[in-house]
């Protein structure tokens, strides 16, 4: 059975509907890439999964638990780790404190994060607010890893990172998947890099799942149709 399963999920911001029927699955140890143009509902889908936005219709099941009635922190405790869009580091906390705030027992601890992002270790005592954009992005990823999740959700996690770092992150993600058996749900704009790591792709259009399939079946004209390039 899939680790995460969404079935015909609908969601609203106030009175305006943002999701009109999203369905997707992420298997144990699998990496699913979520695609779609700006404003199509990728982040909203992720917000529904992490319970930041309660969905209205459909079902979200994680590891056999119906997330329908669970609060956000319960979903996280079940093993969903999030690197949110826009980083959302805690600005008044230092790098170190940002990491400890999230810590839960497991292989990912401060030392492991420091190995992945030596830059963060250098800036340990600095308040997150004054970090550079890329440093904040690293911190957001490190913080999600500190929760030792089973499913890691990355919403535009490589935004603003220098090309070398970005490559390192993709390597790390691939390693996470193969070594730690993480399941991964990823949103990113670089199709090229996604193709190298994602097992399957799922496309959203206007808040609806319109296409799901493996990387090699995502042909040029599908890309043209759904992503406009």
């Amino acid at each position, binding site marked *: 059975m899939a680790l995460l399963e969404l079935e015909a999920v609908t969601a609203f911001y106030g009175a305006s509907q943002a999701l009109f029927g999203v369905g997707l699955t992420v298997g144990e140890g699998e990496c699913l890439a979520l695609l779609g143009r*700006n404003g199509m509902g990728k982040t909203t889908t992720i917000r529904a999964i992490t319970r930041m936005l309660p969905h209205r219709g459909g079902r979200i099941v994680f590891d056999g638990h119906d997330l329908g009635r669970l609060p956000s922190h319960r979903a996280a405790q079940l093993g969903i780790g999030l690197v949110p*869009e826009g980083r959302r580091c805690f600005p008044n906390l230092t790098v170190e404190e940002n990491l400890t705030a999230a810590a839960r027992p497991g292989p990912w601890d401060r030392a492991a994060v420091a190995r992945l992002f030596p830059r963060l270790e250098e800036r340990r005592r600095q308040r997150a607010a004054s970090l550079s954009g890329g440093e904040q992005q690293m911190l957001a990823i490190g913080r999600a890893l500190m929760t030792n999740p089973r499913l890691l959700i990355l919403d535009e996690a490589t935004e*603003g990172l220098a090309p070398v770092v970005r490559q390192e992150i993709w390597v790390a993600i691939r390693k996470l998947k193969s070594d730690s058996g993480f399941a991964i749900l990823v949103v990113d704009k670089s199709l090229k890099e996604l193709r190298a790591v994602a097992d399957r792709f799922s496309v959203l259009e206007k808040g609806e799942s319109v296409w799901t399939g493996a990387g090699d079946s995502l042909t040029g004209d599908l890309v043209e149709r759904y992503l*406009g*390039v």
Partner: protein
Amino acid sequence: MAEPVLSVRGLSKSFGALKATDDVTLTLKRGEIHALIGPNGAGKSTLIRQITGEIRQDSGEIRLGEAEISALSTQARARRGLARSFQVSSLAPEFTVLENVMLAVAGASGRRLGLIRPATGDGALTTPARRHIARAGLEGRENARAADLSHGERRSLEIAMALALEPVAFLLDEPMAGMGPEGSERLTALLSGLRAQAPILLVEHDMDAVFALADRISVLVYGALIATGTVEEIRADAEVRRAYLGEEG
């Protein structure tokens, strides 16, 4: 060669022991896109913030055309024609897209801010605002609140506000970030045409866009410029490849 539109000479800024900008000298010439690249935390945004006056440099000078501007406030520099976009979208969240851009038009117009005459429905504000919104690809979203926009849409609004200032020089901090593939493509085309209007200092990590757009590229590492050159020169620079580009170049 013609007088540079913007020139920065010997600019330095330290945060405690950290040298965020270290004796940086660079120019922005008429009609060019000058890309500024470098590793995370190299000091690119800090450099832009010094040019706009959000933070004061420790030493060095900044000239807009002939005039030395480092003594001016941020808003005075903006009125003289420095437009910037923020790396992290910085909008008026309760305003609609249209109102955000109108605010920029009103600021740029240089006219005194009337207390009584209505701004809403004032064609002198709305007409240009709508035009810039359309150019940035947000047509049809004029009445959405900025807070309700998706991430990519916010990034586009940043661009629209910079356009609305009709500046002498653009300082764009990672404008491509958050844009999807389609948005990146549109923005690339937009920026390419924009340089004729005003030169652009472009901070960007999206190398496809940088290589497609830049007339010159400068590379900043640990606050210091290590190289300036054409796309080919920078691509071929072994040091830049190691420190920044990785296999991408």
